[in-house]
């Protein structure tokens, strides 16, 4: 049982180490998805949001994770 829990934790941990990073990535993807649905003629707008959003999330998360 302990082994199963450890495996489950490890699988979840593959994707979620810092919860705020995972949530922020999902938020960017959802936002880009909504944009792609609302503006199907401008798919690159969703692509730009996705790209810039993820790069911004990475930078912000690293800065916030650093103790001042």
């Amino acid at each position: 049982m302990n082994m199963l829990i450890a495996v489950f934790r490890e699988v979840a941990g593959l994707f979620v180490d810092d919860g705020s990073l995972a949530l922020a990535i999902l938020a960017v993807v959802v936002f880009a998805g909504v944009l792609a649905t609302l503006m199907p003629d401008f798919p690159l707008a969703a692509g730009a949001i996705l790209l810039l959003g993820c790069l911004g999330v990475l930078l912000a998360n690293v800065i916030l994770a650093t103790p001042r």
Partner: protein
Amino acid sequence: MDSWVHIGPATTAVFLASLVEAVEALTIVLAVATVRGWRPAGLGALAGLALLILIVVLLGPLLDRVPLHLLQLAIGVLLLMFGMRWLRKAILRSAGVIPLHDEAVAFAAETAQLREQARLRDARLDWLAGLTSFKAVLLEGLEVVFIVIAVSAGRGLLIPASAGALAACLLVVGVGFIVHRPLARVPENTLKFAVGVMLSAFGMFWTGEGLGVSWPGEDLAIVAFAAMFLAVALVAVIIVRRPSAKAFS
């Protein structure tokens, strides 16, 4: 050329990621072998490998039944989360915010724990040692399996991606057998940095494709994404660097 744009980075990413995971698994298997001998260490490792192969065999055909669009989106998001998680950790380690992973320390800790278990309950120790080895191979191997499946899904890259993983594992096992100690000199954080950049780039590409985005330059966009993730990561290291930190140790 189209396929090489995918095969090259995909196989390289899998090779480097597998190198990191194999080094970590080898450290624990070596610790088990040092304390209890090769029998429980080897049997545990083989059992872990067998379970990993079973997971790939069962999961691989199932993925073929998922619509490509949905598969790209799901795998893309998971790759983004996985790759950016590695990249974040590599940035923080490069900047000296969190300590570097040290295989020698991990080996010493695992060995000490096994010796303590030996002192307390010797009769069950072979079983516990085998289980430790099994768990190490299974848990580290799960990451390799995910990366292999993720970079190859829907692209027909299962064979080159698996070959990259196998080559890395064989290399680590071969060197491990020769030197007979943890591979502490492998520049693990540099590898994690590179893999994080590449997996994030793949994740970006496939998430966009899954959302219906036609990236300019098509597959070549992956290279541009990798360059952008690398640039932002390097900027992040500079911004948060601690005075004593050595970059990319």
